[in-house]
């Protein structure tokens, strides 16, 4: 055999020829677009769902906050109402009025750099302008001063008593009016007369009509032609001479 010639007997048997596999068909160009659209749509739906959930949670949060605020408000409201009733009842027992004030319930502090005379003048000013808490504090302080008895006069007792009356503290006011009468030593005078009148008013407010009449008669008996007596009765009655037949 010539070189290069294949021996037909020793040649590798030829592999049976197989038809080659068919090449895959080309995908349409819109497939990626479709897939992208679907993917984006899913994401958008997810976002939409999250947004709705967020809105729902916001609303729920607002509801809970509102409920919390409303419950807190209701609690404070009930507590305030209860405090008003309780404190009012206690004040009624202590002072005779639900609106009564005591020294402990007032926050006013008189200026300490003033002399007693200046403080007295300040108290008079507050008394005239109806700033009763300040006037009551100042007069009480001046009267109770242990190292100075100069201000324990009938007039100051009367001013203190009227201030405390205006603050609806009837027992304390009555004590000061008693001090007026005591310091006047029972003598008739405008200051004592006014104190009796105020005591009559207090007795009337406390429902003790009989006592109030006694105090008014005391005013008439002590000084029937006084200005205070004129307040009690009419003008003609006040001008009536004592022990006259009329």
């Amino acid at each position, binding site marked *: 055999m010539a070189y290069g010639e294949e021996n037909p007997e020793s040649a590798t048997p030829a592999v049976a020829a197989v038809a080659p596999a068919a090449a895959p068909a080309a995908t349409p*160009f819109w497939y*990626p*677009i479709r*897939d*992208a*659209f679907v*993917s*984006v*749509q899913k994401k*958008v739906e997810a*976002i*939409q769902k999250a*947004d*709705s959930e967020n*809105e729902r949670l*916001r*609303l729920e949060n*607002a*509801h809970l*906050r*509102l409920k919390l*605020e*409303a419950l*807190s*408000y209701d609690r*404070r*409201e009930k*507590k*305030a*109402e209860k*405090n*008003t*009733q309780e*404190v*009012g009842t*206690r*004040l009624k027992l202590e002072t005779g009025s*639900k*609106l009564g*004030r*005591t020294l*402990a*319930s*007032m*926050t*006013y502090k008189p200026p300490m750099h003033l002399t007693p005379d200046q403080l007295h003048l300040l108290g008079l*000013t*507050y008394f*005239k*302008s*109806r*700033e009763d*808490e*300040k006037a009551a504090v100042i007069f009480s302080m001046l009267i109770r001063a242990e190292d100075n008895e100069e201000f324990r006069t009938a007039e100051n007792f009367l001013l203190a008593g009227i201030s405390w009356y205006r603050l609806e503290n009837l027992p304390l006011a009555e004590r000061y009016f008693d001090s007026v009468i005591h310091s006047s030593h029972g003598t008739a005078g405008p200051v004592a007369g006014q104190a009796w009148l105020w005591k009559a008013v207090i007795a009337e407010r406390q429902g003790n009509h009989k006592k109030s009449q006694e105090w008014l008669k005391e005013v008439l008996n002590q000084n029937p032609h006084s200005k205070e007596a004129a307040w009690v009765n009419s003008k003609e009655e006040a001008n009536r001479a004592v022990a006259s037949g009329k």
Partner: protein
Amino acid sequence: MLWPLGSKALLAVVLSVALLPVAHAKSTRDSDGKIPCAVIENASGLVQVMDPSRTQLLDADPKTPIDCDGWVSVTKGWVSIVHRDGFKIQLSAQTFAQFPENNTDGKRSGDPVILYRGSLHARTGGGSGELRVVTANARTRTVNGSAIVVFNESDEETQLLALEGESAIENRFHAAARTALGSGEASNLNFKRMRILPSIPNPMAVASLRFKLVEFKLPEKEVSLALQLAKERQERKFTAASAAQRKIASSSVKPVVKAKPKQSSKWVSEHLSRKLAGGMSGGDRILFPEKTITPAHTPQLKIEDPSFNSAKKAELDREKQRLMEELSQLRFD
């Protein structure tokens, strides 16, 4: 021919966005034909409005209506609100308030604002009437002026700062327990001391007021006026009534005018004297002895010269006459 992958993806995104259904539609409010209780004028920060049906939570954009019985919550910032009755209300940070229906009886007798907590600045005037703000324990009233109402939830205390005009604070469970305030005064109500009345009006410290006013977005003019009134009140030495009663530039002392005696009273007194004295003459002297006493004779010092006689007196008189004639003839050039 296939496009490049990047371009295809980009096109897909653009198409999907263009076709994206609206994820969250902002609902429009159904007004039901009712006038809202208030409208938001301006806001800043985190402010929310909830409608009374509790189904909608709105952001506080300008012109957002607040239906009656709706709530406003300010977490941060501030919000400026105009009430339908004409009140201008501002809420500061950490404030929660409700605007209930206040005209159920046609007379506007209800309370326009309920302050749950926080701070509120109110301005009234121009015929808007009285603004009542209710807290858990108090009710404040402001007419023709401006005021700040604060409810401190930790102390459970209501404080009223009257900036301009007259205001009042009262215990809402006892209407008689009321305190009136003037410009530049403050009062508070709590139950720490044994009293159900609010505290007496006290002048506000200007520094504290300035610090408080910063929380609100107020015009500079209004802030200056409030500070000026507070300063005037703080510097006032005497009580309000005595200072207010005196007219400007008038003397504080009123002239004393003596009443002229009435003619009739003189006749009456004479008649009375005659009657009481039983017709005796000189009855006045008996009844009013002080009138008949002559005034005490004032002592006078008189020196007499015993050697002085009438002749000497005549000589002295002649000498005096001569001197007077000489003096009258003197001329000073």
